[in-house]
């Protein structure tokens, strides 16, 4: 309508001339929308992929005999860690009934188990760490110990069931407190 009126008013005048229109478009709403969507995607996106720790368990032996042989082999080189509930941690060297070094309590700090591990790892050749967790232990404790293996760069370790002997020793130690 506006255009029509314009035409008529200029009819008798000079040559018809098109009004120069600006080519600029108001981008503000578009930018608004753009940033709205950006914020949405930025808030919903997850950049951090989860970290993982790899674990290899031994193939389950089919007989009991194998286990005894293993124990006999390891006796002098076995470093045992017992993970207990209430964030308590114990270690001993050797076999449960005849330990080379008796059951000792330690903790999860750098001066605790890490120091012992580093010491023993340098003094004992081919040391094998046996990690045993009692039923009271929580998952975090065990992961912490597995992590400790990575930190101290110990390649030979095993996650095994706790034996009745170990539990007995642990009970005795706790009673003595």
């Amino acid at each position, binding site marked *: 309508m506006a255009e029509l009126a314009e035409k008529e008013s200029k009819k008798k005048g000079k040559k018809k001339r098109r009004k120069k229109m600006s080519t600029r478009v108001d981008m503000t709403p578009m930018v608004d929308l753009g940033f709205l*969507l950006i914020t949405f*995607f930025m808030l919903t996106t997850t950049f951090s992929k989860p*970290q993982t720790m*790899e674990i290899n368990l*031994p193939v389950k032996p089919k007989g009991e005999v194998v286990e005894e042989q293993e124990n006999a082999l390891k006796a002098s080189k076995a470093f045992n860690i017992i993970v207990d509930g209430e964030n308590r941690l114990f270690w001993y060297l050797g076999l449960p009934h005849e330990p080379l070094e008796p059951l000792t309590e330690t903790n999860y700090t750098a001066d605790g188990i890490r120091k012992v591990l580093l010491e023993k790892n340098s003094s004992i050749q081919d040391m094998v760490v046996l990690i045993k967790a009692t039923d009271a232990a929580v998952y975090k404790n065990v992961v912490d110990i597995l992590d400790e293996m990575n930190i101290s760069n110990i390649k030979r370790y095993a996650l095994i069931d706790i034996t009745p002997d170990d539990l007995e020793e642990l009970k005795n130690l706790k009673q003595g407190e």
Partner: protein
Amino acid sequence: MPKVKVARKSTAIDMTAMCDVAFLLLTFFMMTTEFRGDESVIVDTPSSISEIKLPETDILNVTISSDGKVFFNIDNKNFTRERLLERISEKYPELQFTPEEERAFVLTGTIGVPLAELKGYLGLEENERKMYSQPGIPVDSTNNELGIWIMQGRLSNPNARITIKGDQACPWPVVKKVMDTFQDKNVNKFNLITDLELDPNKLKGL
């Protein structure tokens, strides 16, 4: 003295450049974003110094919540979940699923119900399913359904990596049972999902 006249300037700013940047970022975020499936359990994972990243697909995940419930999840790359459900109903002829239930299984994330309750669980409305507190998959030695899920999950996607996502506070015996189940099914290599923690050895180097 003549008055100094301030030239009146237009307040309009050229928005084109800003618009370009905005849309560039927008496309970037749209391309990289990946929507998370709904997770019915909240798990606070322990931390470790390990820096291995997990891929996003080919994952068979066993989640253990802080109260010791076990959940199973597998991603749906190449229709793994459809095949998994088919295998389950092949193995258990009493468990037959309608197409609606099948779709519900594909869309739902973590499964934490015994097989006997699976049909009922999938039959729920989507909202109800989210609200439903799942009892967890049985892992007892007499009734180890997790073993079935792992077996069938591995058959459905042989390339799947097996991961355990455990809560910090979950009791060790449950994790032990899950690991024993893995060993029974000849899964001797698996990953534990952890948060990142600073490596003290690297700290020394700084």
